[in-house]
């Protein structure tokens, strides 16, 4: 019995749909404009959510309970959707484009043919009245001709369905909106695939612009299928090009794309970088002396700078491969430059180059060491590159923070710095402790000995 009723209802949907289409008067939409139902949006208040839940429950109870109170039933629309629910309002909003006004429907009494079935009530709720002869003739339409709701339901459950019947744009959109309303990404994408096949790109995009959720599904689908060519995705294509020359040319072609000002600079840099790397790579003479592990192609800017500091240090700014040229071209900060050059020169154990990185001359011609990065960090890097104690010591001495200086000196065994620090702190106890760690009769040991014997110093302990 229930099943039968269900079927009836489906047929009814069909009949109303078709009917409305034949009588469509798009300009006559007074009813819809005055309707209080609004389109579904995500950010709506919570009550719409709970409303949906409640109304779903209401529908279910109607289908089960035959002796429903008429007032309750009134809230159900012709498709069995509760009036005021999300899916209902989506549908109503969408169909408002095409629906004619109620006056254009032939007036008859529905009760005889449909008796007390749920579907009968729904009709009256929309004040759509159907003429019996037409009703019967429409009923003979194919059973596969399903409403968007039922189609989506079938799709959700993996039951057979057919989308071919959704031929008008309005029907297609109703179907899409229904899929969106049930939050089923799988079905949304399936409907979009159908729309892609059966609608022109322009129309599809025009409609998707107003449907954010569907649009994002569509973009993601195209992305997954490798069809999408949005701005950044287009740029991303370069990652698929193996040949450097072609990759460079591709990046060049990206320069004219309408990136934001900020990103345009970066894309320009990317092109310049690869162009530069190709030039540097071609000039590989130098590797006879230092064999390299990997090619510089497609490496980041800083890695390129490091490479240049390693192999092309001291070249004049005019050459593309010189560190100073790279620094200037890519607007590399002083701090970053010093860090990178330090790493490269320390790796080569060119302590002289390391020194000259930090040397500054004042107007009297004295040299003084200055650094945009903390000297404790400099010491760190030098130590990692196994700098000798004499070199380390000089830089440990330059650490500003006394605590960091002492801990650095202790860590890297810069005895002189440790001893001088304790002496300056007048810390006799620590000196004695430190002496014990040293080799007897080493110069440092003797130095401590002398200090401890020095009666001029006023120890604090």
């Amino acid at each position: 019995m229930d099943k039968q009723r269900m079927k009836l209802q489906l047929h009814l949907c069909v009949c109303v749909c078709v009917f409305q289409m034949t009588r469509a008067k798009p300009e006559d939409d007074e009813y819809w404009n005055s309707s209080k139902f609004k389109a579904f949006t995500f950010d709506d208040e919570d009550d719409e959510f709970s409303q949906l839940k409640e109304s779903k429950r209401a529908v279910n109870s109607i289908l089960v309970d035959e002796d429903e109170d008429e007032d309750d039933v009134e809230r159900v629309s012709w498709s069995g959707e509760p009036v005021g629910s999300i899916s209902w309002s989506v549908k109503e909003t969408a169909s408002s484009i095409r629906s004619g006004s109620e006056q254009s429907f032939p007036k008859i009494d529905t009760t005889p043919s449909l008796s007390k079935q749920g579907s009968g009530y729904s009709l009256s709720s929309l004040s759509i009245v159907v003429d019996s002869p037409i009703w019967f003739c429409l009923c003979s339409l194919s059973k596969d001709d399903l409403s968007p709701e039922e189609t989506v339901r079938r799709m959700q459950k993996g039951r057979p369905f057919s989308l071919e019947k959704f031929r008008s744009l309005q029907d297609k959109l109703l179907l899409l909106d229904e899929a969106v309303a049930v939050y089923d990404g799988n079905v949304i994408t399936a409907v979009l695939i159908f729309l892609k096949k059966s609608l022109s790109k322009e129309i599809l995009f025009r409609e998707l612009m107003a449907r954010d959720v569907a649009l994002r599904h569509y973009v993601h689908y195209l992305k997954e299928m490798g069809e999408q060519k949005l701005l950044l995705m287009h740029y991303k294509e370069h990652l698929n090009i193996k040949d450097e020359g072609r990759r460079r040319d591709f990046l060049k072609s990206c320069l004219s794309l309408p990136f934001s000002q900020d990103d345009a600079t970066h894309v320009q840099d990317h092109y310049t970088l690869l162009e530069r790397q190709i030039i540097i790579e071609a000039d590989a003479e130098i590797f006879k002396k230092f064999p390299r592990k990997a090619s510089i192609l497609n490496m980041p800017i800083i890695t390129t700078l490091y490479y240049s500091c390693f192999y092309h240090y001291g070249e004049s700014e005019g050459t593309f491969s010189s560190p100073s040229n790279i620094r200037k071209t890519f607007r590399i900060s002083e701090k970053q430059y010093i860090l990178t050059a330090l790493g490269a020169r320390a790796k080569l154990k060119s302590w002289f180059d390391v020194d000259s990185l930090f040397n500054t001359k004042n107007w009297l011609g004295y040299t003084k060491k200055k650094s945009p990065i903390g000297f404790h960090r400099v010491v760190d890097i030098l130590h990692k590159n196994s700098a000798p104690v004499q070199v380390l010591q000089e830089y440990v001495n330059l650490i500003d923070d006394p605590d960091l200086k002492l801990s650095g000196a202790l860590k890297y065994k810069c005895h002189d710095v440790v001893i001088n620090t304790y002496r300056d702190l007048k810390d006799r106890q620590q000196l004695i402790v430190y002496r014990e760690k040293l080799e007897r009769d080493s110069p440092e040991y003797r130095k401590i000995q002398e200090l401890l014997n020095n009666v001029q110093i006023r120890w604090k302990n």
Partner: protein
Amino acid sequence: MAHTEWKDAPGLPDFSLLKRLARDQLIFLLEQLPGKKDLFIDADLMSPLDRIANVTILKQHEVDKLYKVELKPIVNLVNADKVAGRFRRYKIIFTPQKFYACETVLEEQGVYGDVTTDEWNFYILPLDDDILSLELPEFFRDNFLEGDQRWVTTAGSALRLLQSVYGSFSKVYGIGRCAKMVYESWRELMEDGEQRTRQPEFAKVFLVDRDVDFVTPLCSQVVYEGLVDDLFRIKCGSVEFGPDVTSSDKSIKVMLNSQDKVFSEIRNEHFSNVFGFLSQKAKNLQTAYDKRRGMDIQQMKAFVADELKGLKQEHRLLSLHIGASESMMKKKTKQDFQELLKTEHSLLEGFEIRECITYIEEHINRQVSMIDSLRLLCLLSITENGLLSKDYRSLKAQYLQSYGIEHLLTFANLRQLGLLEEQQAGETLTVMESKVGKLVNDKTVGKLTDAFSSLAKKSNFRALSKRLALVPKSGEEYDLRVPRDMAYVFSGAYIPLSCKLIEQVLERDGWTGMEEVTRMLNGQEFAVTEARSKTDAQRIVLVMFLGGCTFSEISALRFLGKERGCRFIVVTTAITNSSRLLEALLDNSA
């Protein structure tokens, strides 16, 4: 210690049933294709499959050879066979569900019909007594970045499965857009299916979107299990310890769950306690072994029969975890890690932000860990509600210089998700600023600009943190051996926002009184009463993380459960951590 079983803790449902269900369905599907067959398995599916079936079971059902499959070749295989005139039957089994988009691919490639398809509804993999995973790491990116809702119904179906096996729930709470949709999809499914009137085994369900709390998964983990995951990557409940841990020349794969008695005692502990605990354990073990001395034959026989095996097992586990701890100590006690933690804590506290930025800048300049640099940038952005324009541009430029310009796409993704943003200066403030600016000299104007833009931030994290007391007052001693709140999972510096929300909602039995908090979290909260129940089940709470959850959060919930005399069961789309979360958003390779 956190491991001790509290007296009145409710027992947990037996989740091994879920494994059996999945296995039975797989066998059923295999039996649908009688005779010898080769099985091609998606690489991502290997580990989950391992947990529920083994080669013997597959062989029993006439699986001949096993292959690993990368993307697409199935279609190529079928087409190649066709060209060569070979006849074979093909079946593609999709799990957890079939997508129409996949069928379209088959159709487009001209093999639709040559290949039959089926679904294996393997929704949930129990990783442990209290952890259920959907094993969908792609959920996070698909849902939150791409806006693709394909997994919404999957999550709904997983809940329905739990409900049909273990009974219904009395209350459902949730927060987040996806949580709402999942709840709705679940309801829909329930209404379609038959109603069961069983006594509920869970009392409450809490659904939470990952994007409600991005701060927690971005923090370095310092509880043992989380740390193991950060350093060694736990995959499907198992970890591979390399030679540095095993102190031999080979790697060992170990299952990490409550079956491992040593592990289950240290997994939730702050790392600083673990070493002491393990050495105590080693001493006890020695004592147990020493009992052998002075035994007579009879006693020795009993000892070998009853205790020795257990002791040996414990011995093996103990040496593994000691090895792992050593290896972690080596990595984590380095100065670098200490500085990293200090920076994280400063960011959480909102303290010395300029120093933090300098640290992050140097981190980038030194080209050390690309992911860590990104993680710190995101943490800075979220806690500060976006970066000042000049900071954003400069840090982004330096990042691209250090790690590659192709990361432009990564930055676009992070921006879209709200993980790394540039602040938009408020107009009113600009006006005020220029007015005040006229009164002072140029140098001060610069400083003022900074001050004003920091005023313009709608600092939601700071406000949330204040309102929910997420960051304990600094200066107070925090004894990590006797944790006083969930903050212990982050060395006492921060209570995970996600867990705090859960605690508050359970305490209030809803969102009442938390209006300001939910407003700052962009709303989307709900609470629904499903049924009344007064059984013990009231004290079992199911928490579903949509988009992944971290081991630190699980530890925090276990702690909370212990405090409140209830038990939490975590259902997550996947186990995540900072690296996985950010790697899902990278777009720097083809």
